[in-house]
């Protein structure tokens, strides 16, 4: 048996180690820096066994813990995202976070990442729930780390209160699902539901459970109408944490939805009336499609009015959540690949942009749009990188984001969801307006200062890596897609339906 749990163990050990190191080395700035570096090393070290595990399909802990293509793809997304966020955080420490909490900062980021990884690896509803909680609780604290800023603590408070409500809703749905099927295993729940007569008897309650679970999970995804915490929290949190919420946290939420929905509910079919076969997927699709459509419309339209860049990206992330949900509504064989590819494009562009936002925001002391004016003259290379990220996010042809959207679009058309496909296109066009509003500031507006803006090492590294990744995905989308399909065969997650693995 491979050490399939090794990545998680490394992250856990790294987190505790960072914490202990930070406590031992308090007050010393250099040592606090080392805590961040330690966390970064942890992520890099954890990447090694994750990559080594590619191709493995295995279960541990009697089936509670599952390594397959889906798990590994999300592990990589989460680890890469966390690593980049740590790099931003390392430079952004003057962003209002009291210096004595740097070790906690780094450790909590690792704990949150651990929660996300557990979600991706869990084949057990209880473990999914606990992973979600680990992620959530760490995030609450991370958001409130700028303790001397009212906005930050208020954001933390808002996040706790909305997040806890989501937890309660999720737990209530979970209690029906576990109680009725008598098992916590995600796949087992699905199989029990598929038994003859089960849905006919308990279908109502199971559907209620499903709605509660979906609502609880969609809170994390920040899809409409469960998004309203996002603008406040994104605005109040330290920028690195905002980047984390927009990317890693969203990816984890997506992993949760995919595993839960595709693992247990989606495939259940039953005889509703004599000779009338229904299946869960088609029954639940309209609701998911409606949430997706709402997210795309509301997210993009509200972003038009935002002046604060972090708020704008909160709305933008709501819109992207809408795009990401489309494959769940549209039945097609490539849905998981579409989600993962899109998440990767989205993650790279977003982390890159937040790195710039962080640096510019700290330099100008403001996250208003106008803080970006004249950036082209202050840091031309970074401005070009920013252009690439924005083009990718907006889905302008021949960028990685375009191919991601194209995947999703084709999937939607394939599944017959023309309305969603149309909305994807139309709302993408709307998104040009606010993305280009930022670009206009960067390239066309004279800034109040011409002073060159030096980018610190970590931020520059993040931008460079994100540019590299986005370019790779833009120039060789076919290769990237094929490699992904081979390395992370999404079908593996359904292996249970041909015997357990």
């Amino acid at each position: 048996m491979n050490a399939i749990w090794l990545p998680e163990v490394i992250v856990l050990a790294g987190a505790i180690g960072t914490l202990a190191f930070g406590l031992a080395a308090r007050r010393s700035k250099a040592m606090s820096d080392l805590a961040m570096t330690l966390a970064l090393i942890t992520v890099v070290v954890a990447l090694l066994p994750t990559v080594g595990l590619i191709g493995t399909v295995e279960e541990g802990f009697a089936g509670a813990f599952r390594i397959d293509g889906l798990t590994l793809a999300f592990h990589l997304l989460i680890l890469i995202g966390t690593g980049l966020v740590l790099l931003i955080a390392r430079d952004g420490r003057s962003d209002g976070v009291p210096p004595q909490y740097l070790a906690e900062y780094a450790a909590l980021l690792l704990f949150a990442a651990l929660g996300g990884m557990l979600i991706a690896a869990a084949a057990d509803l209880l473990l999914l729930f606990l992973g979600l909680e680990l992620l959530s609780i760490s995030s609450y604290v991370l958001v409130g780390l700028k303790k001397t800023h009212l906005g930050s603590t208020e954001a933390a408070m808002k996040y706790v209160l909305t997040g806890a409500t989501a937890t309660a809703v999720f737990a209530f749905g979970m209690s029906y699902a576990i109680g009725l099927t008598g098992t916590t295993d995600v796949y087992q729940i699905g199989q029990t539901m598929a038994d003859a007569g089960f849905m006919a008897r308990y279908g109502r309650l199971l559907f209620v459970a499903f709605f509660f679970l979906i609502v609880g999970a969609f809170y994390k995804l920040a899809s409409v109408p469960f998004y309203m915490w996002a603008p406040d929290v994104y605005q109040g949190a330290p920028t690195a944490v905002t980047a984390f919420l927009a990317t890693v946290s969203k990816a984890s939420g997506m992993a949760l939805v995919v595993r839960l929905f595709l693992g247990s509910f989606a495939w259940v079919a039953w005889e509703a009336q004599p000779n009338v076969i229904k299946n869960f997927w088609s029954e639940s699709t309209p609701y998911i499609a409606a949430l997706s459509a709402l997210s795309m419309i509301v997210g993009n339209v509200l972003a038009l009015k935002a002046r604060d860049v972090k708020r704008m990206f909160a709305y933008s992330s709501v819109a992207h959540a809408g795009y990401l949900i489309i494959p769940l509504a549209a039945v097609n064989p490539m849905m998981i690949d579409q989600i993962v590819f899109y998440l990767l494009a989205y993650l790279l562009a977003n982390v890159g942009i937040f790195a710039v936002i962080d640096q510019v925001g700290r330099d100008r002391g403001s996250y208003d749009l106008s803080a970006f004016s004249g950036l082209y003259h202050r840091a031309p290379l970074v401005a070009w990188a920013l252009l690439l990220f924005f083009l990718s996010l907006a889905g302008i042809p021949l960028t990685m984001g375009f191919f991601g959207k194209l995947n999703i679009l084709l999937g939607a058309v394939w599944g017959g969801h023309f309305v969603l496909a149309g909305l994807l296109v139309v709302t993408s066009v709307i998104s040009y307006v606010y993305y280009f509003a930022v670009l206009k500031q960067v390239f066309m507006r004279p800034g109040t200062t011409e002073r060159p803006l030096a980018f610190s090492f970590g931020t520059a590294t993040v931008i460079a890596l994100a540019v590299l990744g986005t370019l790779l995905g833009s120039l060789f989308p076919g290769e990237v897609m094929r490699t992904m399909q081979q390395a992370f065969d999404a079908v593996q997650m359904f292996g249970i339906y041909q015997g357990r693995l």
Partner: protein
Amino acid sequence: MSGGTLAFFILAAFGLGGVTTMLTARRVIHMVLALSLSFLAIAGLYVLLGADFLGVVQIIVYTGAITILAVFGIMLTPHGGLETEPKSAPRQGRRMPLVAFLLAAGLFAVLFWAVAGTRFARSPFASDEPVDAAAIGGLLLSSRYLLPFEVISVVLLVALIGAIVLAKDDASDTAGSVQAEEHAGTSPAEPPTVRADNAEAHRADRTAASARDTGESGQHVEKEAQLVGAVREANRE
């Protein structure tokens, strides 16, 4: 009506009565006490359902730790001298209670429709024997639930760190000399270390969840003792 059913209705009445009191009370402290009554009633229901151990945990965690934590929370955050609140928050708009009521009513209607419309069939494996606490321990140690058990300890550890990080008053570290002296007794690094160690130690403890929380609230007591003193006048009013 059997004894069990009677007991259920009495406990349910207490539970719902507690909640209703909470919803109608004016003083915040009364609300907390009313809620603790509800938590207690729920513990009784657990016992009635043969979940004795869970009932005990419920009492320790909810009526014990969480209620006390809540009381401390209220005392530490006095507002305008009088811990009462109007029927609803003024800035929410006057319609909030009505809307919330209709939301709750709608939700209950659907839940009622789902529960009452289901023909439950008793499983042949079902038994009315109480569950032995040892069986729960055994399940937690079984290969399947060992991992969730480990994870919950991490969750609690994170909550602990998070609570300390957020609640700690950094200003007092550097501000007045009096507070600096208070801190001088214990090195600034020490309390968190101790707690982390505690958490490690607790992990071995198989019935730990509750204990850890009481431990934590205890830490809160120490931690915020000086603040309590400062706000005591306000509470007296």
